[in-house]
């Protein structure tokens, strides 16, 4: 069985190689090849999953060692895979949702002349993400980690002729690289501390290690997670990443990329458990981001950017849960999976809306679309209900558990975190209701002469329906007998948190804030018509529209500062370093020019010099003798 693991990664990788090197011959069949290989990977995952379910919880983990990758001295990195329950969960999510997005893209990208290449990149994305979750050591994970960054770079900048897309792609890659530095330092620290960076030995040895080192490793891993999962302070790339085609956004936000940070922290649970300070940092980052993203999501008029803010916020929930330790890991992953369903559904729905609206993204030019695209409306609506945590749907189960776990952290911290999570839930309900109302309800704010909204083709609607089904039922299914938690328990371990609030109280509170948030949105956007031009808004609204001024800060401090620094250095290199060299040359040249004057060519001047020289020699001889 374990020999199948490599096949998971290999299938999409072969697809990427075929499609990217195949040339024009594959233009007509390219999208089918890409989709087929993604589905094939899912099929292999399903087989492995079935096999895994047949075993007892203790020996479900599979291991496949391919070959020794980098052996230098004590440094040994292997190309080896590890498939345990945690990886399996991710693999199913990635290949499953990934395949659906592939199918969707067949329709969405139908008129793009570079569709073959698009599918090549999608396959590369899947392969990199699978490598990330299947690696059995941190260095191989790092390969997948950066591979995901590369694939996202290629996909975000897919429409390269648009300068904004090229810039957004570059920004995503650069911000991610900052996080990658964290991961690489973490790996170096592991190597110097443990002499290895394979999951097994490192995570087993955390007990014997000083807390300081573990805290350092944990903080570096957190930095990495911040980059990839778009957490404060490295979240700025996520909004710009909406420049890519919509299926890419769905892929980045639901199945791959941003979930990587949560995976990393959960996988490294043993390190964080032994380093409470690092854990605290994780929790703080998660809590801050979940509010940050939610606030940004409220102010955006671009439907994709509003959803991007929402992703940031939801990932914040997951990071928060992962930072809570064994009481939260399983819930983080559970929320990740349910989020994978409904966020993919929402993005595909948004793509479907854009598809029917001539690629218009401004929600102020939507309105009343429910009659024109019923399937999109229903699937999007189900996704909406799931994300706000409507009782009975997926998001309700997973988010509720995280809020409960946050309260269970205990003490003042618990109250603050729980409060933040509840507040986040209220804002989530607000902005998602706003998106819903502005898009599908109210009056038409578009010109019927120019725009002809229509339902999308089957290749696009079917994935949306499948995802909507998942959004509705996944959470409930996972919660039967705590199935999901006990499935993950051998890997992530699990403790029951003791919340100061009873479970019923938490659930009631969640439902109340949900109603408040949604009601507020209805008051503002449902009851009265939405203005076609955005009002000026309060100071907070304006700041939130600009991503809470984070880009402005980056621009002033990093971009401007960097430009000045490089310009100064270029100048100094020319004038100072090279100037010293050229100065030496010039001095020598000048000196020789002076000396040349002595060689006048006139016999008598030479005669004087000779006489003078002879006189000096004689005088010197006499003087020397005198001494």
């Amino acid at each position, binding site marked *: 069985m374990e020999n199948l693991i490599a096949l998971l990664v290999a299938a999409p990788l072969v697809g990427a190689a075929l499609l990217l090197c195949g040339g024009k011959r594959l233009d007509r069949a390219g999208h089918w090849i890409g989709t087929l290989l993604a589905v094939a990977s899912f099929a292999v995952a399903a087989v492995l999953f079935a096999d895994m379910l047949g075993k007892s919880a203790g020996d479900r983990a599979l291991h496949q060692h391919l070959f020794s990758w*980098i052996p230098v001295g004590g*440094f040994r990195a292997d190309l080896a895979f590890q498939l345990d329950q945690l990886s399996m969960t991710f693999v199913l999510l990635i290949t499953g949702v990934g395949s659906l997005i592939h199918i969707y893209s067949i329709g969405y990208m139908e008129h793009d002349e570079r569709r073959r290449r698009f599918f090549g990149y999608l396959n590369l994305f899947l392969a990199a993400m699978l490598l990330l979750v299947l690696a059995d050591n941190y260095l191989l994970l790092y390969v997948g980690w950066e591979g995901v960054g590369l694939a996202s770079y290629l996909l975000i900048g897919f429409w390269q002729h648009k300068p904004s897309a090229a810039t957004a792609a570059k920004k995503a890659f650069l911000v991610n690289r900052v996080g990658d530095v964290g991961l*690489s330092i973490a790996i*170096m*620290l592991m190597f110097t501390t443990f*002499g*290895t960076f394979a999951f097994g030995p490192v995570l087993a040895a955390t007990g014997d290690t000083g807390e300081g080192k573990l805290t350092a490793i944990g903080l570096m891993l957190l930095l990495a997670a911040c980059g990839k999962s778009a957490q404060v302070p490295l979240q700025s790339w996520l909004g710009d990443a909406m420049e890519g085609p919509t299926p890419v956004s769905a892929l980045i936000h639901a199945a791959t990329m941003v979930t990587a940070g949560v995976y990393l922290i959960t996988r490294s649970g043993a390190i964080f458990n032994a380093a409470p300070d690092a854990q605290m940092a994780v929790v703080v980052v998660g809590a801050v981001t979940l509010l940050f993203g939610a606030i940004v999501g409220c102010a955006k008029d671009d439907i994709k950017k509003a959803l991007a803010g929402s992703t940031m916020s939801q990932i914040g929930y997951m990071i928060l849960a992962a930072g809570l330790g064994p009481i939260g890991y399983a819930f983080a992953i559970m929320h990740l999976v349910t989020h994978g369903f409904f966020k993919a559904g929402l993005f595909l729905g948004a793509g479907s809306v854009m598809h029917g609206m001539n690629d218009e993204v401004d929600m102020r030019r939507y309105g009343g679309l429910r009659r024109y695209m019923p399937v999109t409306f229903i699937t999007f609506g189900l996704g909406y209900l799931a994300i706000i945590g409507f009782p009975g749907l997926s998001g309700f189960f997973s988010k509720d558990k995280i809020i409960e776990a946050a309260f269970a952290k205990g003490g003042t911290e618990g109250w603050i975190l729980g409060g933040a999570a509840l507040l986040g839930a209220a804002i989530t309900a607000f902005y998602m209701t706003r998106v819903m109302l502005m898009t599908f309800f109210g009056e038409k704010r578009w010109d019927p002469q120019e725009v002809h909204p229509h339902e999308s083709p089957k290749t696009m609607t079917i994935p949306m329906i499948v995802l909507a089904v998942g959004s509705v039922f996944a959470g409930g299914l996972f919660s039967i007998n705590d199935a999901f938690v006990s499935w993950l328990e051998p890997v992530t371990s699990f403790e029951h948190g003791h919340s100061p609030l009873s479970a019923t109280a938490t659930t009631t509170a969640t439902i109340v804030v949900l109603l408040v948030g949604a009601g507020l949105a209805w008051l503002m956007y449902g009851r009265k018509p939405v203005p076609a031009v955005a009002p000026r808004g309060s100071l907070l609204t304006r700041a939130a529209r600009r991503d809470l001024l984070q880009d402005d800060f980056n621009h002033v401090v990093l971009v401007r500062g960097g430009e000045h620094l490089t310009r100064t250095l270029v100048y100094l290199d020319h004038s100072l370093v090279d100037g010293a060299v050229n100065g030496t040359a010039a001095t020598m040249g000048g000196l020789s020019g002076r000396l040349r004057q002595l060689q006048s060519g006139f016999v008598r001047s030479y005669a004087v010099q000779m006489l003078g020289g002879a006189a000096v020699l004689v005088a010197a001889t006499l003087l020397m003798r005198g001494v």
Partner: protein
Amino acid sequence: MSFPLLTATAVVPAVGAVATAALPAAKRTAAKWVALSFSLATFVLALVIAIRFTPGAKGPFQLTESHAWIADFGVRYELGVDGIAVALIALTALLIPFVILAGWHDADPLEETRPNRRWRPTQGFFALILAVEAMVVISFEATDVFLFYLFFEAMLIPMYFLIGGFGDGAGEHGEEQAATQRSYAAVKFLLYNLAGGLIMLAAVIGLYAATADQLGAGTFSLPQIVEARAAGHLHLGAGTERLLFLGFFFAFAVKAPLWPLHTWLPNAMGESTSPVAVLITAVVDKVGTFAMLRFCIQLFPEASKWATPVILILALISVLYGALLAVGQRDIKRLIAYASISHFGFIILGIFAMTSQGQGGATLYMVNHGISTAALMLVAGFLISRRGSRLIADYGGVQKVAPVLAGTFLIGGLATLSLPGLAPFVSEFLVLVGTFSRYPVIGIIASAAIVLAALYVLVLYQRTMTGPVKAEVRKMPDLRVRELVVVAPLIALLLFLGVYPKPLTDLVNPAVEHTLSVVDKQDPKPDVHVDATTGGSRPGHATHGDDAEAAK
């Protein structure tokens, strides 16, 4: 006596150089083919060396040849290779055919000039390339310090003519200005390297004097000196050793180049044609870093340890400085040159971190940097020859017009920024780990270059390849077959060595261990002893061993 394989590998390109140069002016195409076939023959010989070489066999050097040469001064014709040399000879022999192919039309006479019987630039161009190859190969093989010095210096002559004599016709201010800048660059290259070489000559003579004084008979032989040292017959004394070390190191630091001795490189690489730029940075400069490993550290271990802190700081400055300056460049080739300075900083960092990961990584880095820079620079050359400009601002939207060119350029760029999966990642990470395990702060600061590298590569790619298509670029043809033949194997190799670098590491590891044993340094021990279990591939003994460094 067995077949003198090492000599043959150096002689074949030398003969090729003579043969190419001797062809009459009219046989221009024939000259190209002659040069190409000789370079391919050299590559075959290099492969034979790699096959005949047994990694981990006894003794530091293999396939040795030794003949008396200038008996009065103890100069011997001594050749021998260790794993590091084998890897670099293979790299050199591999790159030269690509350099020749890429420069196929670089030395064609301009159409308006009438064929001249005596001036034969085409023959000269390819003959000079082969001459450089011969000298570089023998520098990698020489185990006699004097022999090494001879060819280390002699290769400046053909390089001087290659830089000064051939331009890419893409200067900003017309051909006349370009010729002036070219000769400036060539003279700068020559003077810099001569200055370094002369100081080294003094140190070479000093070394001879010291050995003559203490061993009875003076010698230049590296194995003999190392052996005498180990046996305690030779004791240089701290002051002498440091001076001699500095003399050697200065020459190699100029060649490598290390900050602040780097300013010749951007000029030389910017003004010369891109195949010559590849020759400079991927082949000739490697002799400098290679010689640090082979001569500086092995001849003067104590002085090397003494100088390590300063050298590490300079290397760290190189890493960041080169990267920052690359960000600020307007000229594609100068950008790549500054990126190379940053990479050479990494190599030197790895060498002087004195860990097996650092030095092994540095050696891998030399090979990988050679391949990746060759890929990036040659594609940049193809790009520049199409538009006739080196300025980044003159391009835009090339991706739309020439997707294959843009794709290969991107892969070359990604290799330059050390993307995992491509070969340079392996070496860069090893260097960083090797540095970090002994000098954590330097390792962390050097990691910042990971971000800077992404910045300069992606900015370059964005400005040249993406965005709206510029009018001047609209008619640009995609890569031709000859150009694809040059780039595709390099990219394949980058991928292969990124995924499976084991052949290279197996070759290099024993040589690195030998070097470290000469310096008497061991890898720092991890804080926690971990019994490796996963996969059963990690031998537990890796963490054993007393380490004097860790004790301090």
